[in-house]
């Protein structure tokens, strides 16, 4: 009984995480400009990855491997700090080198 509850919870977290990752990748293809594409990936990738890793943490905590839970927690905390910082570094380099933002009415770049 507890087995099926844990399985259902893990599946729910995994499917929600994969939905956000797919949205991030589709946004990378669809948006018309560099800055808007980084909006899509910088936010959706972070949350999608955290949800997938939370699902894996629940699965592992039930099946009893305590060190894997700690290592997954390390990846999650590192990812919350590292992904926005990497996005900001790319955007700062692009703005200083002169990539112009897109306005409504321009063509796709």
């Amino acid at each position, binding site marked *: 009984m507890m087995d099926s509850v844990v*399985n259902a919870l*893990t*599946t729910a977290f*995994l*499917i929600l995480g*994969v939905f956000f*990752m*797919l949205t*991030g*990748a*589709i946004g*990378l*293809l669809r948006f018309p400009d*560099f800055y808007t*594409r*980084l909006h899509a*990936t910088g936010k959706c*990738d972070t949350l999608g*990855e955290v949800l*997938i*890793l939370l699902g*894996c943490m629940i*699965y592992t905590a039930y099946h009893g*491997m305590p060190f*894997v839970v700690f*290592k*997954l927690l*390390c*990846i999650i905390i*590192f*990812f919350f700090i*590292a*992904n926005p*910082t*990497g996005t900001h*570094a*790319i955007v*700062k*380099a*692009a703005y*200083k*080198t002169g*990539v112009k933002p897109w306005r409504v009415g321009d063509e796709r*770049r």
Partner: protein
Amino acid sequence: MIEQVFLIIGLTIAATVLLSLYRAAVGPGVFNRVAAVNVIGTKVVVLLVIVQYIFKNPMFIDIAIAYAALNFIGTIIMSKYLERGEVCSQ
């Protein structure tokens, strides 16, 4: 039952990597390509954790930690070089 779920999730993430590869190949200019490579590195970290549950081998997660750190450092150094023209300014 849960093994099929992990397998399907892993294949979906691999399809997402293929979608980002289009932006890495086409994207006009170098910044689109740097952003796409960062995205691919992120998804590879998640894929390594999922592969650990498919093959039931607990050694993949150490590789995932190391690759997450490597991807972050690579992105930061690449954008520093594109901004200034050199990496260490001393």
